[in-house]
């Protein structure tokens, strides 16, 4: 087998190795570690909710409206659970609602693993105050069996 590989001279081969090793070394260690840590989410048996609406990504036309717009409004949907979660930033707090309305518990997990929980009331509302430190993920569970998480949210 090695006969055919002689076409890469020692210089070429070593230069390629050097380049490959450098490419890995050039990446911050914590960047790689954060990627490894995401595997833990595998065991969390929750549906990943998709971002369905982001006020920042709306066209300008839509932003011209009569009511004062919230700083940022996001909507996530979990198709399998048929649930939508809406959040907005209001007065330095995070206000959210689950649609259709139902009671449960919400967890806000930051990248460092810090976990804050709050109650989702019977009409689906929850309030996290003060605002969690971004980026964070929302994980919610309800009495009716909804179990979903969002991706990392940066506000």
């Amino acid at each position, binding site marked *: *087998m*090695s*006969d*055919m*590989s*002689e*076409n*890469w001279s*020692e210089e070429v*081969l*070593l*230069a*390629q*190795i*050097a*380049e*490959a*090793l450098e*490419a*890995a070394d*050039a*990446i*911050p260690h914590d*960047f*790689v570690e*954060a*990627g*490894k840590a*995401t*595997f833990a*989410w*595998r*065991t969390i048996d929750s549906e*990943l909710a998709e971002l369905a609406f*982001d006020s*920042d*990504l709306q066209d300008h036309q839509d932003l011209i409206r009569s009511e004062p717009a919230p700083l940022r409004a996001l909507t996530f949907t979990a198709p399998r659970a048929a649930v939508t979660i809406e959040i907005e930033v209001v007065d330095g707090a995070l206000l959210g609602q689950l649609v259709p309305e139902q009671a449960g518990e919400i967890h806000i997990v930051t*990248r460092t693993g810090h976990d804050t929980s709050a109650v989702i009331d019977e009409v689906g509302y929850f309030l996290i105050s003060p605002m969690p430190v971004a*980026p964070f993920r929302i994980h919610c569970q309800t009495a009716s069996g909804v179990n979903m998480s969002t*991706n*990392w949210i*940066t506000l």
Partner: protein
Amino acid sequence: MPVDPRVIVLVIRAREGDQDAWDELIERYAPMIWSIGRRYRMDRPDIDDVAQTVWLRLVESLADLHDPGAVGSWLATTTKHECFRTVKARRRQDSMEQTLDFDMTADEQATMVEQELETAERNAILRAAFAKLPPTCQRILLLRIEGISYEEIGARLDLPIGSLGPKRGRCLAKLRDDPALNALILAEIGAPGNE
């Protein structure tokens, strides 16, 4: 570029919950996500967000990946998509202050992402082949890469100079015998059956 069978093994093992296999996938493709992010001129926090989203999508999709060997391509496409979304969001936020300095066409983006994927795959093959070498081989070759003379290598590793030439030759032969690296070299010289 031929699919490195190692990738298929890693995906299948990760599917079964093997953290080591997952870690190896991350090490293989994290440089690609990083480079693509840089090509989109994103800063570190944005690249972090993109990477997290991409890895989480992969965690979610592991079981459904139709073709485990194409995981690199899947990651490249997902990264491109997330980068584009992030850049678009930033552009809207910053539109008052500056015009966007990112102006690649869709075709240029596709080509760039393809190149980054190919680089990631080939670098992973090279690193894996190198990592399989005995420690002495690794040290000798690293010192050769640094352009250190045989006299100096001999002194540093406490090996007789006369043994270094043949030793180095055996190390290189071992490297070339790595099946994945061999396949890579064959693909690049494009001459199957060439003696």
